């Protein structure tokens, strides 16, 4: 496997932001979701920007923690979950888009929590951050899930910016992926995310060809990446891959987003319906607008 894991992540341990035992919005059925810390994009519209970077142990967050849940031990910030009251003041104070709560967790630790919820699940989804940045850990986790619970499906929720070697490496244990397409226009994509969309487009084509593309998500911001022309072009490109593709159109919502140089505007319900009309004019997609 060619991907280099982030520090704190290896095949047997990942840098985990958090887990959710029951999620109804991260793929088919009820799913256990693992959020991995660290992302290779820096999106203006990121809803959980504290998952983007790794903690640098600066200790700024210690000043705002009133319960003693955060301490400095041997130059490292240590979070004690049992003392935490969950105000997230630490996350609000972090100037580096990180969180002191993300911690290395072994596959066995995550598996213990999955085991407890397993009877209630359709599967496991790894999200982020960017899941493929810790592909070695994802592979190890999915292998463990498949070995113990063959019934459960394993999904990756990704920004798509991963090379073919990552998808090759995950192929034997990953049932499907959900890919965000922030923008088909590359110049605008760079503005929105800080990176080119070249790998994203390749990932969508590759996964669709392998039958492993569960859905493509389009996050649309009013007046920014939602022009009829761009949307129709996106629809045509996706239809060329699979005209019945499952597409989730997500109207941008400001919740959790950092202040931005570009104006980020929430589309109205009418605008969201219009997006659906524009896309439906291109192909009979399995379309969901939220």
């Amino acid at each position, binding site marked *: 496997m060619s991907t280099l894991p982030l520090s704190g992540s290896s095949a047997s341990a990942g840098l985990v932001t958090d887990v959710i035992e029951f999620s109804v919005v991260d793929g088919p059925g*009820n799913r256990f979701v693992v959020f991995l810390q660290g992302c290779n994009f820096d999106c203006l519209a990121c809803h959980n920007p504290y998952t983007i970077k790794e903690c640098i142990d600066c200790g700024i967050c210690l000043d705002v923690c009133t319960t003693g849940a955060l301490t400095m031990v041997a130059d490292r910030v240590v979070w004690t979950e049992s003392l935490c009251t969950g105000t997230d003041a630490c996350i609000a104070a972090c100037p580096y888009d990180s969180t002191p709560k993300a911690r290395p967790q072994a596959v066995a630790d995550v598996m213990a929590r999955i085991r407890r919820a397993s009877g209630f*699940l359709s599967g496991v989804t790894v999200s982020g951050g960017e899941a493929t940045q810790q592909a070695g850990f994802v592979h190890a986790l999915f292998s463990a899930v498949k070995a113990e619970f063959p019934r459960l499906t394993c999904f990756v929720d990704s920004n798509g910016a991963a090379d073919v070697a990552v998808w090759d490496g995950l192929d034997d244990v990953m049932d499907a992926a959900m890919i965000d397409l922030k923008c088909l226009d590359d110049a605008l994509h760079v503005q929105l995310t800080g990176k080119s969309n070249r790998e994203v487009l390749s990932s969508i084509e590759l996964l669709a060809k392998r039958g492993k593309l569960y859905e493509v998500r389009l996050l649309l911001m009013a007046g920014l990446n939602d022009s009829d022309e761009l949307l129709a072009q996106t629809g045509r490109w996706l239809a060329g891959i699979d005209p019945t593709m499952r597409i989730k159109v997500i109207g941008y919502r400001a919740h959790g987003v950092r202040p931005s140089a570009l104006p980020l505007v929430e589309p109205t319900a009418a605008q969201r319906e219009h997006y659906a009309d524009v896309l439906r004019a291109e192909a009979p997609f399995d379309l969901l607008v939220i």
Partner: protein
Amino acid sequence: MNSRAIGYDQKVRRLAALADGVLPYPALSTDAREALDARIICDMFEGDRPFTPRYVLPDYAKALRQGVKYLELEAPCDLDDALSFLTILYSQVPSVTTYPVYLGDLDSLLEPYVPAELSDEQLDAKLRRWWIQLDRLLPDAFVHANIGPHDGRVVRSIFRVERSLRQVVPNLTLKVSPETPDDLIEDAVRTVFVTGKPHFVNHPMMVADHGAEYAVVSCYNSLKTRGGAHSLVRLNLKRAVERHPGGLDSFCDDSLPHWVELTAELGEARIRALVEDAGFFESNFLSTEGLIEQERFSLMFGIFGLAECVNELMVHEGHVDARYGHDSRANAAAHRIVARISELVKQRPLPYCGGGDGFAYLHSQSGIDLDLDTTAGTRIPIGDEPGMLEHIEVVAPIHELFPAGISDIFHVEETVQRNPRAMVDVIRGALAAGMRDFTFNLDSNEFIRITGYLVRKSDLIGVEEHGARHSSDYLAATAEINHTVTTRAIKRVIAAELSPIG
């Protein structure tokens, strides 16, 4: 008599209840009388002189096969006749609310009358007409029908009709077994999103307790069909612990045996009055024509207020912050108390309780409108529930101890409507974890569960000024305030059928 907010029918029923209230109460010991007056034990305000069993579950399949002589009804031959037959029979099924609490396992009852040439549209139209009749003739949310565990044309039609009509009546329970197709459960989930119905029950667990002939009636009471429950008496664990200065050990060893005995005495007095004095089973046509059998009845022994009881005992034990639902010591105490009550109930023989092999059935009683500050049954207080997985892990182990019914309500976010399959996963998991009976409240739903029965939010607005067509809405209007189910302010309304008169 002069109220503008109560309809004719409702006035007649209240006057009857008043008349019942002037008759002498069955003889009780001084201790039982004192406990009843202090509402530590409770008779559910069924009336002072029992003349009908509380829950009657006629064998409707047998009635359809053999006809009913008393009602001069012959066995029906087609669907229209069967629906008419059942409607007439329902009008003659007694209960303490005056409305039948059980309408039958409707899919298995009606499936034989659905010919292949009848289209789904035609079937829907017939059932839709009938469904409207039931809601208007039997306006009470405790009127309950069962469906499942097998797939069929009738159960699918019932779900379609339910979603199109959005009625309170009838309440619905889907029996679920491992063989029930996922697709049928998913159809039920889609119905929950629209109407808050059905409940989901653990079919294998019920069959193990009651045999194949069982049903869920009224407010999730599970009983034998062709049988029922003479009465429901209940023990208020919150009040019981208020008279107990000691800790958990002495509560289980000394207090519980005392209160369980007094509750059983109250039940026995009511059973004897019903069976021996009123002679119900000697005279009622359901009994004389074999549609119910006295030997398949028992007493329901209800408990409620477990949460407050446990939390108070934890204080007595010096664990001030240990709360039921959140602390392992509190959860262990809850399980111990319930297990102890179950043991005591199984050691206290009762007459005419062949349905329970001579003993009462334990029931986690979901409460009535008067239960101020006391949590329904064995539930975790509303608003204090932990995450769903932990919630299920805490409550599931006690479900098996309640053959006559227990129910928990899970609150789910409306986003789940886009992913009903997720609910199927949770239902399968909950049943496998040993849950007996549960349902879901969707945050955005027009229908809400109050303690266990269902009301439409819009029906609660202005109940006092304008009255309500469903008598259960009166209960809901007060229960909603008392249980802080929502924050909407409703003026207090007395529910005559289950509350004290006057």
